[in-house]
């Protein structure tokens, strides 16, 4: 038996920031970790959004298969109502289950869409759960009571998420007090780390995964303090004070990493991973306003225009019912964050929408318009970097839950779904936004040292973990183990073993367990899809 494996998740971590923090001595342990391990970019999903991306990372399947496409998605193939994703929408087996059904223990802390928790041989405390539900949604049922008794200072309220605050922040709305925002995350990460440390000491598992999501939250709002390219020549005292507080957050993460590696022991594999990277965003595209100008969308009478000074993208809640006249609308975006555009088709989710036979030509026309006519009014440069159809971005049995089109903006930002006074607005302050290139840094026996590799995909993480654990890789996973990360000597002794396919998650009715047609998807189609996504040339 090999391992254990520790999956040390940093939501949104990006080399630009991590390398700078290492160079400045804020994360000295990470510097040593990288020097004695391998690193490579880890390419995210389309769009590079937290729920689909982490779910792909822990299932080894793409969003069209695992069924998590966004924070909010259609309740069913024929519903027009949007729900927050949970584990009940997850249609593929997770790494925790793959490991635990083979007789090894697994622990999972703070992963999105893990509530209600899968009943694995091990433990689960899901992330993105409001405090009232932390205990109910932890597994086993007595876990939280035990942690309360055993860990001094344990506080489920600090652990949990206040979604109202967080979602506003993620959507780029200004918060009043940067320092208390940072402190909130310092305290929360400490709670998660205390649990990780306690569990590693008292309930050793073959695989433990944890996500520290404050990295994402700080970078969204405080990118200007973290991107070394944006450092002012003469920083103000305010700038230095807030940056010092950001650095304190990362200094603590560095100590968590060091302590985790020590606790895991010399035989352990530690993988530092992120679900997506980060970059700056300087503008807001009001996509629904553009769609209106192009004749695709009609606002409901009295639909409010976002104030000029607003920087929000539209809180992530269903927007299409009250703001739009759906009887006259042929394309719209319903929730911020997904960069997805929906085309209502009559009879599919109610009676409004275009005739089914118009769909293909309307969509083609819209793709062309997005590419050619969605431009910066000053420079006439295209605002849309890329457009994917649903089949390209979400191929698989759950494809119908995803938007018809997904776009990448020229500055990597998320568009706003609000009614804007204009199509494009410059942000007064630079914010951080998601970027497709995340991180994968690995350290352990048989891994190369001090090597930088070609990019891997999120779907490659599960096979790599399984290989490090000496477990067979299910034949239906989409990625492959990152072989270049291991030394030739190690691979000689430990070549990856392939085994039977993953199993049906227990909450999924057998008749919904994968459409066989998709199962027969040949290698050619997989390659075509990866090419369409821009993953391979």
């Amino acid at each position, binding site marked *: 038996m090999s391992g254990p494996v520790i999956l040390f998740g940093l939501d949104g971590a990006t080399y630009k920031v991590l390398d700078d923090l290492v160079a400045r001595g804020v994360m000295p342990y990470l510097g040593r970790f990288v020097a004695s391990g391998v690193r490579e970019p880890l390419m995210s999903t389309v769009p590079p959004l937290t729920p689909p991306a982490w779910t792909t990372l822990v299932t080894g399947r793409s969003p069209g298969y695992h069924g998590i496409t966004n924070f909010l998605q259609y309740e069913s193939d024929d519903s027009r109502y949007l729900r927050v994703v949970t584990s009940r929408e997850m249609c593929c087996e997770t790494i925790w289950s793959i490991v635990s059904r083979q007789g090894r223990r697994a622990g999972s802390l703070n992963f999105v869409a893990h509530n209600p928790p899968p009943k694995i041989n091990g433990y689960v405390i899901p992330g993105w759960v409001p405090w*009232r*539900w932390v205990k109910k949604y932890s597994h086993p049922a007595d876990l939280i009571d035990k942690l309360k008794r055993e860990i001094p200072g344990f506080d489920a309220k600090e652990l949990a998420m206040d979604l109202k605050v967080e979602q506003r922040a993620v959507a780029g709305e200004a918060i009043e007090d940067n320092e208390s925002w940072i402190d909130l995350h310092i305290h929360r990460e400490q709670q998660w780390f205390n649990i990780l440390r306690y569990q590693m000491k008292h309930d050793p598992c073959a695989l433990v995964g944890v996500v520290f999501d404050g990295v994402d939250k700080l970078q969204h709002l405080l990118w200007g303090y973290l991107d070394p390219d944006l450092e002012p020549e003469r920083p103000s005292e305010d700038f230095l004070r807030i940056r010092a507080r950001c650095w304190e957050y990362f200094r603590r993460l560095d100590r968590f990493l060091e302590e985790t590696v020590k606790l895991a022991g010399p035989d352990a594999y530690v993988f530092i991973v992120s679900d997506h990277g980060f970059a700056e965003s300087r503008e807001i595209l009001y996509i629904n306003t553009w769609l209106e100008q192009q004749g695709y969308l009609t606002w409901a009478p009295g639909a409010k225009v976002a104030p000029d000074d607003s920087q929000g993208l539209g809180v992530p809640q269903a927007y299409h019912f009250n703001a739009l006249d759906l009887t006259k609308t042929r394309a719209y975006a319903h929730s911020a964050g997904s960069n997805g555009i929906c085309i209502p088709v009559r009879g599919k989710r109610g009676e409004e929408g275009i005739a089914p036979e118009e769909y293909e030509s309307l969509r083609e026309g819209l793709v062309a318009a997005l590419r050619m006519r969605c431009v910066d009014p000053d420079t006439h440069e295209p605002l849309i970097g890329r457009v994917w159809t649903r089949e390209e971005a979400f191929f698989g049995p759950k494809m119908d839950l995803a938007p018809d089109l997904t776009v990448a903006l020229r500055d990597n930002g998320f568009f706003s779904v609000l009614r804007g006074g204009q199509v494009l607005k410059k942000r007064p302050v630079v914010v951080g936004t998601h970027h497709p290139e995340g991180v994968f840094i690995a350290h352990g026996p048989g891994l190369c040292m001090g090597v930088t590799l070609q990019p891997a995909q999120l779907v490659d993480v599960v096979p790599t973990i399984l290989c490090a654990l000496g477990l067979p890789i299910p034949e239906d996973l989409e990625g492959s183990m990152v072989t270049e990360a291991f030394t030739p000597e190690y691979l000689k002794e430990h070549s990856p073993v392939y085994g039977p396919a993953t199993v049906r998650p227990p909450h999924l009715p057998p008749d919904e367990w994968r459409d066989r047609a998709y199962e027969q998807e040949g290698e050619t189609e997989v390659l075509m899809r990866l090419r369409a996504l821009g993953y391979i040339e």
Partner: protein
Amino acid sequence: MKELDRLALRNDLLTILTELREDWEYSDEITEQTGIFGDLGFESIDAVALGSAIEEHFDQSLPFAEFLTKAGERQAKDITVRDLLDFLMVSLNRSKERRS
């Protein structure tokens, strides 16, 4: 086909809620009249989490987002346990019919 027994369903629902009362720092008795926002102090994300708990209990998907959105559109002041029960009666009966 037999209709669902409303009384049994009511007791089931009240048991689920009462078991969680302590986690929610709510000490009063939970009845059909209890409002999930006004009395239990829920935020909308708590209502979503309640939906998943109920789905898990009955081991099936229910159109909870539709239920919550429609309550919002009606500008309902609150959602009571009785509203939840009505919703469950309709949805569970419908899915029973679909299955048989």
